[in-house]
């Protein structure tokens, strides 16, 4: 395998792994901030115990998210040096702003949060959690803006003299629709994941009839959050796809395995792409005009097919197509489950089947998010910056052996790290809330655990 392929695999491994941990922290940080605010306002210590219990799970994910994120910041230079040199004038500033304006805030205040339970008043401690939550989400906003620029580059000009892309309009980069859509889509997805995580773990304890009030409350807090954002995600996802239709026609065509340009483009309920032949091997159960309608809000609109594009400009179809369908199906499933939970919200423990459903649904938002990134990134191929720079032209001119060695290193280290983090999470969940050291004042000193 050549350097480009190895670097792609390495970056894929590093980003997928990173984003197994980040979405939970984006949503859970907000939920914990709400819990602490409730405690600070009302003084009911259960809210604080909730913040502490969920905080432990939050921190395990936060730690892994941080260390894997720092690595990514440098990988554009190590593995994608030609990309970095070509677009650094625009892309680099977004990463630097992320570090300066957001990452500092979350990293500094997470230390204050962990160590500050007894040094700060409940109110101040809640404020610190809000800062961590807001900063984490702001961090995501900047990174997603940078990714959106790779999907739909704006606000730049190509300088022939300097041989690179140069920034002309920063506001265009940060306010473009592609960025706002991507931010809304990814953050909503992260919130759904966090909600299902909290609901699922609460369901685990409710099914065992332990800490019932504690987990009933946790469940209901997450349920409202999950219901709102799963509905938002479904509607917004549709708008996002309509934008993709306009901005990245090859990606949209791959998402639907759509080959022939024409009006009243159908969606086939079942199709199997044949990428070699440039058509669908199987395409049955068409919904006439559905693709035109969804993509352009007009059942007779013309939708460009992949056959219109030279082979070298087409993304891998099968992967994009499957990933998209799985993501959409799961998106609809989350709305259904959240609605079911909402209807039975006052009789949760009388509905063990709903609790079980929610418990076993914990992995699904993870899958949906991974599929979403697959659509976004594989669907963008063969471009690293859509229409501007090809992935094959972007890699560093370094020895393949080096990249292979670090790829193996990442797989081994991240594999072990993933297992450890997972094991610690399971352990924390099983132990339940009583394992958490009691808060200041609510227990005699000395009871706070030596860990």
């Amino acid at each position, binding site marked *: 395998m050549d350097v480009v392929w190895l670097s792609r695999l390495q970056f894929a491994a590093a980003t997928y792994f990173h984003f197994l941990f980040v979405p939970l922290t984006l949503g859970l940080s907000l939920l914990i901030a709400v819990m602490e605010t409730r405690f600070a306002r009302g003084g009911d210590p259960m809210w604080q115990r909730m913040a502490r219990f969920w905080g432990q799970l939050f921190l395990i994910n936060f730690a892994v998210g*941080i260390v894997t994120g720092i*690595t990514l910041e440098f990988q554009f230079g190590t593995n994608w040096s030609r990309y*970095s040199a070509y677009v*650094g*004038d625009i892309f*680099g500033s977004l990463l630097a702003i992320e570090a300066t304006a957001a990452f500092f*805030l979350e990293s500094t205040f997470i*230390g204050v949060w962990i*160590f500050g339970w007894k040094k700060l008043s409940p109110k101040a401690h809640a404020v610190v959690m809000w800062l961590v939550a807001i900063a984490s989400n702001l961090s995501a906003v900047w990174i997603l803006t940078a990714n959106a620029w790779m999907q739909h580059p704006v606000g730049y000009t190509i300088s022939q003299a300097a041989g690179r892309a140069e920034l002309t309009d920063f506001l265009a980069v940060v306010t473009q629709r592609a960025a706002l859509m991507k931010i809304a889509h990814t953050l909503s997805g992260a919130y759904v994941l966090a909600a299902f995580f909290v609901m699922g773990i609460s369901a685990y304890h409710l099914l065992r009839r332990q800490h019932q009030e504690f987990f009933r409350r946790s469940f209901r807090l997450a349920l409202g959050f999950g219901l709102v954002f799963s509905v938002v995600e479904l509607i917004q996802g549709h708008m996002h796809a309509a934008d993709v239709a306009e901005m990245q026609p090859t990606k949209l065509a791959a998402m639907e395995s759509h080959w022939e340009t024409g009006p009243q483009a159908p969606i086939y309920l079942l199709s199997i792409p044949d990428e070699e032949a440039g058509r669908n091997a199987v395409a049955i159960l068409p919904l006439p005009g559905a693709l035109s309608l969804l993509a352009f809000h007009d059942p007779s609109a013309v939708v460009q097919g992949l056959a219109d594009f030279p082979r070298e400009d087409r993304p891998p179809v099968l992967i994009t197509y499957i990933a998209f369908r799985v993501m959409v199906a799961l998106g609809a499933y989350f709305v259904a489950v959240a609605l079911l939970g909402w209807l039975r919200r006052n009789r949760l423990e009388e509905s063990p089947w709903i609790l079980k459903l929610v418990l076993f649904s914990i992995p699904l938002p993870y899958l949906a998010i991974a599929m979403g990134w697959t659509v976004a990134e594989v669907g963008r191929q063969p471009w690293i910056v859509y229409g501007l720079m090809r992935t094959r032209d972007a890699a560093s001119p370094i020895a393949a052996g080096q990249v292979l060695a670090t790829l193996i290193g990442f797989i081994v280290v991240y594999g072990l790290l993933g297992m450890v983090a997972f094991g610690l999470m399971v352990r924390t969940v099983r132990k339940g809330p009583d394992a958490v050291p009691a808060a200041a004042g609510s227990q005699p000193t000395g009871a706070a655990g030596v860990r």
Partner: protein
Amino acid sequence: MLLESVWFFLWGLLWAVYFMTAGFDLGVGILLPFLGRDDTRRRLMLNTAGPLWDGNEVWLLTAGGVTFAAFPRVYAFMFSSLYAPLMLVLFGLIIRGVAFEFRGKLPELGWQRLWDVCMFVGSLLPALLLGVAFANIFRGLPFDGQGYHGTVASLLNPYGLAGGVLFVLLFVVHGAIWLSAKCDGELQRQAAVVAGRVWWVLLAVAVVFLAATWIDTGLYGNYLAHPVLWLVPLVAVGALLGVKRCLLGGRYWLAWASSALTIVGVTFFGVIGLFPNLFPSRQAPDTSLTAFNAASTPRTLTLMLVVVVLFVPLVIAYQAWAYRLFRHKVTAATLDHEDVY
């Protein structure tokens, strides 16, 4: 020209602040097997850095991010050329970061030992390799118009190694002083003794390094051209001597401040000597990457300057607040009564 020069020194400042702040927590990690006789000791040591190390590490991320934004060609060429050492630094920081968080999660001795090893290796590798990397940058690297021709072995030349050792010693002294200021009893006493003893080694290595810099690099050129610049290395040397004086007087916080000034002084000694080079070539000096030929457009530099001027003072303010909030000593009682790792 002015904008690029300002950015050059801001770039140096971010690295200096990273070394100054993270230097002590890296040093504590390196000292862990030497001063951490038992588990309580090791927990005391780690908890002196507990609330602060994460915020410290972001200065590295920002230095990297700013290199990308202000000098994209340097970011691209430096990090791909120094691929293997940089990856080792990153792997070190990964295992170290999770070691802080995971170590205390299980009571088993083997588990804690495992993370202690990660803490040590993950602290030593970045300290050593960043030193090796910067020394090699001072010296110039083997590349020309065709590309980079060096290997990991070529980085481990005597001057590069001296740079690595110098960084490790700077951070060890910095960390030992930090422990002297933050701990009490036996641990404080031993940390102060270690700081005092390693200080002599540091002094010797610093002298050798400064002399070798004269022989092996062109760093002194700027100083000879503008003698007023000698003030910077003089401050560094003065601060280093001040460290010893404060240590002898038992004024540990002052010693730490002096050590911080030493680190900033040493970093700026190199940065000023390098100017305007960011990534100089030893083989073909005309292909060196400089603040002028590798910078972003004035538009991006201005934008980033606004961001930095707005946010960095704010960052310093809230980090200073966090340092103040956790200024107390970390003692056995702290471990029992406070939220700690």
